[in-house]
Structure formats: structure tokens, C-alpha cells
């Protein structure tokens, strides 16, 4: 069976729909649709010119891979760009937009709001968000860096010393038994069972006591 395509111009006009269908598959990859479509048209022309009517092949079977291949070439330039790099770049943008939107709405934006503003997909945003992106505080950021919620102030040597003393002091405030428990567990790296044996009690008792003391210690250190 011989397939005849007919006049070039007309045939190509009639098959632009095929190019559209192919080009749509590449949407959202960062290249304008018009460019995708033009490359696809190039592919269609190439396919028309290269098609061997005597081989009995269906035109689309031959043409679709050529069109897809031609569009794919557009992406080759960025071919060596590693995902890790591109994600880093997007995550910087996300950070900036997140800050802007938070101010605008007075609450944290969701990933879809961020995606919309950046004109990328939610999927891309989610991929680019790394779990430890700076958490924003909604209080306005003053020039004074110390004003931010999670900042740990730059500590002078005196303050450091004071902190270490504070820890020691807090430990001193504990009852002797509790202090021994903490020393054994966290400074001598003993297990609860070992500590229990040394202190002549049970592991369960140690476990309960320990939780209480730790909470107590933490509250004292944090406030």
C-alpha cells in the first residue's frame, strides 16, 4: 500500500493539530509554548520531507517521534544542568516570595499560593522546599537583627561563661540523688539500667525520675 500525503503546504497546514498535541506534552518545563510549537512545526516539515511513501508506514507513526525529538532538542542546552542546582535556585525565589506574601496576607502562604505567584507548579515548589527553610516570624522584621524570633543572640564570653555557670548552678540546685542520676546518665553515658543498678533502684523508676528532672532542667535553662 502506498500512502500519499498530498501537497506539502496544505498537508502541513492540516496536521498542525498533531504538533499542538505534541507540544502540549512539554508545557511547564520553562520554555514558552510558542517556541515549543515552532520547533514542533520544524519537526513536522522534516517528517513530511523525510517520509518514504512506499514503505507502507502510517505517517503519524513516522512523524510523531520526529516532532517530539525536534521539541526535545530545545531542552538540550540546559542538558547538563543538575537538578540539585536548579532546585537551589528555585528555593531562593520561594524564600523571597514567601516573605512578600506573608506580609501581604498577614499569614503564612500555602504552597499553592507561592506556586501561583512564581508561575510554577505546586509540584516544583514542593520539590524545592527543603524542610529547614528559614521559618518566618510574622512579626515585622526590624533593622535590629536581634529582634527576630528565632535568632540566637551573639553571646559575649561573659555570657557564655554565665551560661555554663547557669547549667552548673541548676545542677547544684538538684537534690543529691537527682544530680547523681543526671551525672551518671548524661556525663558518664550510663544506660538507664546501669544507672538503676548503681543507684539501687529499677530502670522504670530511673526512667520516670529522669523525665521529670529533664523537664525541670530545660524549663530552668530556657526561661
Amino acid at each position, binding site marked *: 500500500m502506498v500512502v500519499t500525503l498530498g501537497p506539502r503546504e496544505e498537508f502541513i497546514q492540516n496536521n498542525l493539530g498533531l504538533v499542538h498535541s505534541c507540544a502540549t506534552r512539554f508545557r511547564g518545563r520553562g520554555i514558552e509554548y510558542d517556541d515549543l510549537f515552532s520547533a514542533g512545526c520544524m519537526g513536522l516539515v522534516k517528517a513530511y520531507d523525510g517520509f518514504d511513501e512506499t514503505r507502507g508506514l502510517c505517517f503519524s507513526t513516522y512523524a510523531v517521534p520526529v516532532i517530539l525529538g525536534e521539541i526535545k532538542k530545545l531542552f538540550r542546552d540546559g542538558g547538563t544542568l543538575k537538578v540539585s542546582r536548579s532546585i537551589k535556585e528555585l528555593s531562593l525565589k520561594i524564600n523571597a516570595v514567601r516573605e512578600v506574601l506573608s506580609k501581604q496576607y498577614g499569614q503564612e502562604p500555602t504552597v499553592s499560593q507561592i506556586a501561583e505567584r512564581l508561575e510554577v507548579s505546586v509540584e516544583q515548589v514542593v520539590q524545592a522546599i527543603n524542610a529547614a527553610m528559614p521559618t518566618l516570624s510574622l512579626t515585622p522584621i526590624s533593622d535590629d537583627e536581634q529582634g527576630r524570633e528565632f*535568632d540566637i543572640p551573639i553571646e559575649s564570653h561573659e555570657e*557564655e561563661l554565665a551560661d555554663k555557670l547557669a547549667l552548673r548552678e541548676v545542677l547544684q540546685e538538684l537534690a543529691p540523688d537527682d544530680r547523681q542520676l543526671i551525672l551518671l546518665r548524661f556525663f558518664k553515658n550510663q544506660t538507664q539500667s546501669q544507672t538503676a543498678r548503681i543507684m539501687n533502684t529499677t530502670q522504670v523508676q530511673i526512667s520516670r525520675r529522669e523525665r521529670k528532672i529533664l523537664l525541670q532542667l530545660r524549663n530552668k535553662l530556657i526561661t
Partner: protein
Amino acid sequence: MADVKIERKDSVMCAYVSGEIDHHSAAEIRETIDRALIAKDINLLTMDFGGVTFMDSSGVGLILGRYKLLSALGGRLVIQGTPPSVNRMLKLAGITKIIEFKGETADETC
């Protein structure tokens, strides 16, 4: 994933950590730092977390481990450049009062 760059000057060493710190990457970071630490007589290690984008409790273990090692070697550990969410993790760990912090920006010691 994660990356660590080491700079050394005399007995002072700086480790710039970036990327995601989980148990997988912490192992590599730890080896790189410890190898460099032990190779030379270091009495001050600064760990910079400026480029860190994710950190779970493995990062706390990484810091505590270096803290203990340096104490044993008679040296000192300083943490700097921690993003807010890393701070959150450190605060939760209750070690912000034990470990030395230098502010958000890198210091000229390294």
C-alpha cells in the same frame, strides 16, 4: 545532598556545611571533619551552617559528637551561621546553652 568544605589555618579549623543534614549525609560530614581534625592539632573548630536547608536530630548528634571529641582533644567548638529552623532544632535539643554560638554571619577567624 550535603556538602562540607574545610578550611584550616594553624590550629584553627572551619567547616562550612551545606545542604540537607540527615543520618545519611551526617556520616559523610562527620568523617570529613574528623579526618581533618585528627590530622592536625586543632584547638578551635567552627562549624558554619549557613547553607543548611534541612536538619533533623542527626545534625544535633553531629554537633554533640564534635563537641565531645574536641573536649577530649582539649579544643573548643563554635557554631555559627545557623538558619532559624536549625536554631529551632538546637533549642528543642536544649543545647543552645551548652554550645558556643557566634552570630549568623561568618567570622574572619576562618
